[in-house]
């Protein structure tokens, strides 16, 4: 019951939704429409699970005063303040807007912007033309970097032309190969999930 029924459910739902695309059979088609709309509502609850998980990780750390408990306290306090103001005062109130525009927006974008520093320093320190393949990678990267920005065209009109050729011919060829092979992997993994041959998604031992 703990493992068999979920596997049977997965088989029925997965096969049903897949066959709905190929078979015109009114009960199957109607059921598929319903199941597709159910997925949206179940996914909504899974967001709440993620938030609950976060609290279950940080609150014990705060209680035990262990490790980075001060940072955990800051996280939990801001999370609860945001939830209280957003749920009870609406998302247009001043406090929620302050958190959104004053903390979330700059925080999120600035953390992502740090990667520019690291990618630049990593490229400078490790990008070496050690072999044919690495030289090719390096030259292509430099060509694309120049052709992607306005200065490439200002240096020479050949640069964007070469960049376009590299993007549309060898790059597109390789990416097409990647798409084809990854699609086979996707089909294999998901068929195994539906047919119950792979049960990693079940988790647990019982």
């Amino acid at each position, binding site marked *: 019951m703990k493992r068999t029924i979920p596997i049977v459910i997965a088989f029925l739902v997965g096969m049903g939704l897949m066959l709905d695309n190929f078979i015109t059979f009114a009960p199957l088609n109607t059921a598929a429409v319903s199941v597709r709309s159910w997925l949206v509502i179940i996914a909504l609850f899974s967001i709440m*699970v993620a938030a609950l998980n976060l609290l279950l990780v940080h609150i014990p750390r705060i209680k035990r005063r262990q490790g980075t408990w001060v940072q955990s306290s800051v996280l939990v306090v801001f999370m609860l303040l945001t939830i209280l103001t957003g749920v009870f005062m609406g998302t247009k109130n001043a406090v929620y807007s302050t958190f959104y525009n004053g903390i979330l927006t700059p925080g999120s974008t600035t953390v992502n912007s*740090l990667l520019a520093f690291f990618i630049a320093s990593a490229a400078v320190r490790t990008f070496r033309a050690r072999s044919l393949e690495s030289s090719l990678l390096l030259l292509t990267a430099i060509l694309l970097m120049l052709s992607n920005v306005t200065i490439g065209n200002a240096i020479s009109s050949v640069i964007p032309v070469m960049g376009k050729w590299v993007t549309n011919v060898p790059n597109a060829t390789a990416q097409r*190969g990647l798409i084809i092979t990854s699609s086979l992997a996707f089909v294999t993994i998901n068929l195994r999930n539906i047919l119950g041959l792979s049960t990693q998604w079940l988790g647990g031992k019982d």
Partner: protein
Amino acid sequence: MQISQDPIVWLAAFVTISIFSFVFWNDSPFYKYVQSAYLGVAAGVTVVVGWNNIKNQVITPLTNGNYTIIIPVLLGLLLLIRYIPGLNWVARYPVAVLVAGGAGLGLANTVQAQFVSQIKAGLKPLNSIDNILMFVGLLAVIAFFFLTGKTTRAMERMKLGWLPRFGRIVLMVAFGASFGTTVMGRCSILIGRLQFLLTDFLGL
């Protein structure tokens, strides 16, 4: 230069500079606490938006007598029961629906969208160097990924050992192209923050 009078802009500038401090000071306390604050707000915003959606898509229809959604609501609630000790196996039912639902929806169209369409696009008339390069390159890349010991020996016997090696070279060109555009992407986010500091905060 006209520094902004808006307290929210000041707060955003403080958050930005605190996070930037990590670049020059690995152990920056400003970075640590501001990051925790922003992660907390991010999680809070997710809950608020999720709650508003639950109100619109679950509570309002149920109170209006639309009970067709009772099954997915029960399945969704089962996800939350996983935190009760001894009952975490109950969450497998909604997870089964989610996993199989995503799989079933994706499978039906993957073969057409990613396999057939891309093979069609790769099979162009061999009447130009570009088309020949694309055709041979595609075979080479696929050969590279399908490489096993048996396949390598078979290909060497057929004098086709160069094909996966050529595929590797084509892949290196693609990775170089990806790196080139990745640099642009990361720089643009950094420039966006600098634009905020210079224009919105300092008024330059």
